[in-house]
């Protein structure tokens, strides 16, 4: 059962579930692809997230409620035909595990640095959404044994390329920005380049693994 919520006067949110779940996310991606390939009238942009799909539209062309019922109908139909096919790519990210928070993370979790690295590199993550800043990919789900709340005082500047964890998520900071996640290491890959097409290295639905390099 897909619900919808108004997001301002020019967008709406389709809600596919309440909890983060790869199956729910797979359904969202299938529907997002259907809307991109055959955009319903008035729709300009779709934005997949964990449990929701944002849809931007021209409200002078479409009434939100009418559009929403059309979208829900198409989505439920696309859902029924979801064949597991995705455009998902696989990435291996080389990481220097020498981050400023690695020792603290290890001691708070009561494990060694090497064990933190082993557990962080053992999971193949899924890109659930991009946001916060351009190209920032929210990767999940992190091994529950590595789960820590965000730092109590965020850093004013986290360097681009920093590999970080918070909650059940991990990510690479694509730009120098403020940030409250725990920094485990760094990578030399460029995660966002406005002159590249597409500008973000990772896309929603891609599979990502980290690999320790010295």
């Amino acid at each position, binding site marked *: 059962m897909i619900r919808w919520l108004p997001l301002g006067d020019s967008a709406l949110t389709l809600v596919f579930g309440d909890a*983060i779940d790869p199956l729910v996310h797979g359904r969202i991606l299938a529907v997002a692809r259907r809307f991109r390939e055959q955009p319903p009238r008035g729709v300009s*942009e779709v934005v997949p*997230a964990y449990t929701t799909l944002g849809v931007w539209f021209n409200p*002078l062309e479409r009434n939100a409620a009418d559009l929403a019922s059309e979208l829900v109908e198409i989505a439920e139909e696309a859902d029924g035909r979801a064949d597991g096919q995705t455009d998902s790519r696989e990435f291996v990210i080389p990481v220097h595990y020498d981050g400023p928070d690695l020792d603290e993370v290890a001691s708070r979790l009561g494990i060694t640095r090497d064990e933190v690295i082993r557990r962080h590199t053992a999971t193949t993550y899924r890109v659930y959404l991009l946001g*916060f800043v351009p190209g920032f990919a929210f990767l999940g789900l992190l091994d529950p044994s590595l789960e820590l709340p965000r730092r109590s005082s965020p850093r004013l500047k986290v360097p681009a390329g920093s590999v970080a964890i918070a909650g059940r998520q991990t990510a690479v900071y694509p730009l120098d920005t403020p940030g409250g996640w725990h920094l485990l290491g760094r990578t030399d890959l460029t995660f966002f380049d406005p002159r590249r097409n597409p*500008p973000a290295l990772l896309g929603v639905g891609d599979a990502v693994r980290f690999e320790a390099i010295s």
Partner: protein
Amino acid sequence: MIEIVKAPPFATVQDLGRTRLRAQGVPFSGAMDLEATVFANLLAGNAEGAAVIEWALGEGRIRLTDTRTFSVFGATVEWNYSLLTPGMTLVAEAGEEITLHVPERRFAYIAFGGGIDVPELLGSRSTYLPGGFGGHEGRRLKNGDRLPLGPPVTRFNTGWADAMAEFLPRTDGPVRLVPGPQVDLFDPGEFDRLFAGKLAVGRGSDRMGYRLEGQEFSHNAPAALPSEPVCVGAVQVPQGGAPIVLMPDGPTVGGYPKIASIITTDLGRFAQLQPAARPDFELVTFEEAIAALRDREARFREGARVVRNP
């Protein structure tokens, strides 16, 4: 070409923003007051989305290297030994200097015939400061910067301003809100408090977001909602209870409950509020929000018609 003789504070190149890249996490960016940008462009003889210079808080000086139309919105200017009011179509000669005054409200705009011709990046010429890209070298303008202009406008009419006066944006009036996607997580009494006139724009407000101070709002949301898409103008309520309104450079996703959204038409009017100003929030229906947007589109069209048929 224009030369920035004295850069005004917070001066950036902006246009009507970026769309279609939200799924890559690219914010809307673009001018804080789109309506002022559109009319500055129309009065300079440009298409409505040409790139302009946005500034705040202080004065600046710009020199032209060739003859150009220009128009200023939101500040008086000094040029050719005259003090000129905003909203006029003017023509400056090569070598002349224009002195930009402190904006009357928060942001002011100057458009030049031909538009600021910096390279388009990700579908826009606007500057996105947090990412250091777009506009002129991804940064604020500084003294000595030289910016190219597009081909000059050949047809212009200094009488445009009078003909367009009735279509210009209203700077006063309420900031209209529609209910947000998570309004049900707030008790109805909490929602009503948005309209009690007690909220003020906070000092920690910038192109990414405006804080609202004076009241805190409680909700029944779990500690962390899975992040979902957000729109410019969304009024989100973080754990502390003090609302933040997302502005054009703000993030494209967020996990805080959104109690309301500012309607598209009133985003510029809200952006123009100074710290400590109290927005006059008014609840409207979605139908009223669309009617306001339709009215604005009609005013843009009429403005453009004046320019094309002087």
